[in-house]
């Protein structure tokens, strides 16, 4: 189930909210929220949803094991190693096995070892038709359970924090289940650290102010996703569908600008909705995005982009690898390794790996030599550098194949590339699309927020409160966003057909 769906908005959310406000006591509310979260997840993954239950149960046991070892002064290496092995095995099996088998197949065929490629998991394993229908896609590739990357990392971080003594043990499996499965952040993050919500699981409250602020944040996220990201996606999808040989530089740039806005508003919109829903249910999740496109270096970009993921990799991979404490060369190696894996976390393909390595390379360069020069460069140029580097990176992220990405980059940077007669700008972006792009470009920068805050600061009344008209205006605007976004969601079921009858 998606937040941006009528089923979620008109059925699921009202029922879950009603339950939470009718039930008394944190225990009952936790049980209700856990049930709701399992329904939420099971709706999208009726059968493979069982994987999340396996993850919850196994990590609860690993947590107990690690805490027990720690309390006895014994080594936590075994419980940690076991937790890492089980969690990563799940992830590798469902997310990477098809890709890895494909590579192995290519190598085997290339070396003449195997005449038949064995890229397709179902064929390789000889699954029964029933099991195949559940586990595999129609092409025989293994199905990727929704949100597995998020809940696996989240559950693993719990065991690691317990083993390190940074988080207290959760003896109640239902409470741990709620932490792992909590539906607002389950599908698209942010990746919540157990220590950040442990106290809130045990005790929390929601008052009118918090509920209203959660609603406002949810509506902002919904608007970002539905009104900007989805419209930008229309442009990006259509441009990226054009054969790269036909792309003109201007069209290629239009496509990548649209994608740059799409991915930010899509991802940060989901994070906003998650944070807003968290508020509605009494949870406080950390921010996941802080205007990443205003960064003045790639290093800063990663402090602003998907913060919960970059901090996860920092705390559980970069620092354990030695961080920057073992000399320059090892630091650079650690950075590249972390970003290569970060790229693969986003998806099992060479394009994602290249995207991760590409960012890792920029981080190494900035740390090694470019960083100091960058500091002396005018701010505007630094912004331009980051935007350019990030957009080039998004080409690898978005293109279906590496060849496709390289062809797209060639179109972006080769004057006279493609045939301008074949694809006119107007056929890709009309009034609606331009409106969304301009709104996105403005909304991706903190200017509006800064100007608004300055105006609001000047307009505060003597008691420090905002003038009513300001608050009403802001909320009326949000009400408009909610109504328009709801209409757009409703249009998801709009599926006209021309040849049925007259």
């Amino acid at each position, binding site marked *: 189930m998606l937040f941006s769906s009528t089923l979620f908005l008109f059925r699921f959310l009202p029922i879950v909210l009603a339950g939470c406000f009718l039930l008394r006591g944190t225990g009952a509310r936790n049980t209700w929220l856990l049930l709701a979260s399992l329904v939420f997840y099971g709706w999208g993954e009726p*059968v493979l949803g069982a994987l999340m239950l396996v993850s919850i149960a196994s990590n609860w046991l690993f947590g107990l094991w690690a805490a027990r070892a720690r309390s006895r002064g014994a080594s936590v290496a075994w419980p940690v190693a076991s937790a890492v092995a089980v969690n990563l095995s799940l992830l590798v099996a469902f997310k990477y096995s098809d890709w890895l088998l494909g590579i192995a197949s290519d190598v085997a065929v290339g070396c003449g070892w195997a005449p038949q490629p064995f890229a397709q998991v179902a064929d390789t394993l000889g699954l029964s038709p029933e099991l195949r229908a559940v586990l595999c896609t129609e092409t025989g590739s293994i199905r990727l359970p929704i949100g597995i990357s998020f809940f696996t990392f989240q559950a693993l971080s719990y065991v690691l924090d317990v083993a390190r003594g940074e988080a207290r043990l959760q003896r109640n499996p239902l409470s741990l289940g709620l932490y792992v499965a909590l539906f607002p952040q389950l599908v698209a993050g942010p990746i919540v650290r157990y220590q950040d919500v442990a106290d809130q699981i045990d005790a929390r409250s929601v008052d009118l102010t918090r509920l209203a602020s959660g*609603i406002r944040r949810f509506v902002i996220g919904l608007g970002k996703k539905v009104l900007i990201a989805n419209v930008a996606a229309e442009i990006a999808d259509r441009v990226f569908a054009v054969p790269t040989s036909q792309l003109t530089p201007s069209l290629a740039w239009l496509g990548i600008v649209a994608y740059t806005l799409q991915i930010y508003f899509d991802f940060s919109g989901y994070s906003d909705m998650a944070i807003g829903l968290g508020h509605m249910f009494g949870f406080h999740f950390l921010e996941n995005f802080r205007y990443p496109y205003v960064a003045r270096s790639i290093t800063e970009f990663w402090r602003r982009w998907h913060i919960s993921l970059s901090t996860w990799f920092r705390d559980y991979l970069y620092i354990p690898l030695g961080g920057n404490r073992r000399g320059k060369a090892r630091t650079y190696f650690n950075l590249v390794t972390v970003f290569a894996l970060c790229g693969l976390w986003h998806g099992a393909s060479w394009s994602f790996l290249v995207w991760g390595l590409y960012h890792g390379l920029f981080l190494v360069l900035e740390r090694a030599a470019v960083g100091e020069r960058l500091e002396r460069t005018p701010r505007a140029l630094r912004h331009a550098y980051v935007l350019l580097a990030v957009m080039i990176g998004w080409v690898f992220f978005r293109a279906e194949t590496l060849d496709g990405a390289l062809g797209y980059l060639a179109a972006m940077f080769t004057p006279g590339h493609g045939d301008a007669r074949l694809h006119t700008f107007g056929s890709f972006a009309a009034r609606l699309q331009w409106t969304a792009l301009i709104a996105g470009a403005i909304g991706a920068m903190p200017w509006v927020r800064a100007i608004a805050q300055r105006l609001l600061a000047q307009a505060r009344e003597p008691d420090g409160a905002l003038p009513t008209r300001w608050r009403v205006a802001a909320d009326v605007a949000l009400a408009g966003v909610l109504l328009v976004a709801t209409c757009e969601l*409703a249009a998801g079921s709009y599926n006209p057909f021309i040849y049925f009858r007259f």
Partner: protein
Amino acid sequence: MHVAPRTPSSKRHDLAVVAFFLLVLLAPTLDELVRERGEREPVHELRAPYERPAPPNDLAEFERWPGDWERWYGDGFGLRDAFLTAHSALHYFVFRNPPAPMFVVGDPGWVFYRGSLSIDDFRGLVRLSKQDRKAWIDRLEARRDYLAKLGIRYVFAVAPNKESIYPEHFPACYTRVGATVLDQLVRTFEAYSDVEILDLRPAFLAAKARDRDGDYLYTRDGTHWTPRGAFLAVRALTERFARDFPGAPIAQRSELRAKLSPGTDSLMLQMYLGRWFAERSETLVPIDGERPPVAGLDASGAPGRHVVYRNATPRAPHVLVFHDSFMPFIERALAPYTAELTLEWTRKFDLAAIAEAHPDVVIDLTVERQLVDGSLFDFRPPAVDAALGFEHAREVVGRWLPSDAGVGPEVDPAFRPVTIVGERSGVLRLELANEPRRLAAPAALTGDGRNLRFKLVVEAPEGTQLELRYRCLGSRVAEAGDGSRRELRRGRNILYFDFDRADIDGPIELWLSGTGSVLLRELETRRVVDAQGTRK
């Protein structure tokens, strides 16, 4: 988000925010309690709503169930129609943007249909290779040659896309950079084939000069012909008939009139904008009264539709048309200019339909946008023997239709309860049993009896089985039958039975047994002739 000290005023404000949010969330559920689901379902989208899924029985169904349920919910949630109207109005009036990719918004009031690759075709981006062009020649010549062996003429007629006739009302961003597929085909066939494509564009473009404000050849908010445009098509087709069948009448405008159509092809209505744009939908009909079809009266306006009009127009040909959605707008006007007009809404070159209709002319009438996918018209002619086999038993001995009151088959009382469906039609409902029951063919269907082949058109529900044997009670009693029980498809079934004897000289009885019930819609007897028309 602002953070401010809490005051009674801000609390009231927060309360209003929460109340409004809950109202938006709950309003659809309230609507579901007040209005019937049918009022919100996708009637304007010209599709059947999704059905509520039954509880799952196995793992695979369990996996699919949430998605099926969500689709069902999506077709009928509260205020769906209001939300969709608001969505379309916002897109259309504010952004001049279509609410769904299927539409193209042109000049004010003009909407176009975006078929598969139709915009690329309009712009001239679909280039036919040499192989493509040869394939087109092969497939149309194969059709023409196949029909010629049966003594049937072939016409390939193309209804222009609306944007081909009114490009000035199409969005300017879609610039034209090359020839359309139809342009390329017309040139190809003129140069390399004697199959003639009946291209209606020249007639339409010439008539367009007489357009007046609000009076066009195509509806502005639809995809099809207005009565003016429909007349051009009828005229072109009847002129073509007259060329091959001297004396066949040619349609005159004074013989036809526009008639308000109960249905509509309005894309605006499909876009939930009908309250703002209500263009009349009209069809072209004969001025002296229209004659209803003799078969297919209840046929829906959708692919698979089968309709037959029968007239006594002298010297006019018997015509079979394989068509798409453009035909319903001209069929009543065209019918009087034919002896019999059989319509099959299909893209398939249906040999059984040709055998069944036994026409003088077969027309492929297609809208221009379908030419983009040449494979839709692929046709591999059957071997000569097969071509002259049962389906092509060309000489009709006799035919019974439910409308032929009083001369139907004699039905064994054991079929009871035999029911007659429909007051006018007289379709017979036969309850089958495992005991063979007699259905005596009318005398007019037995002829002089030589190598007769029977055709039964029956409608059956799912799971009906039928076994048929037949006897001739002449000087020598003869019996035949394949002895096997046939599984009937749901819906219309055409069954052929071959009584391949040269000495049939008496009444013929059919013996039916089976399970379930069937509606008998048609019974026909034919005699086999070979390629030269000689009786076998």
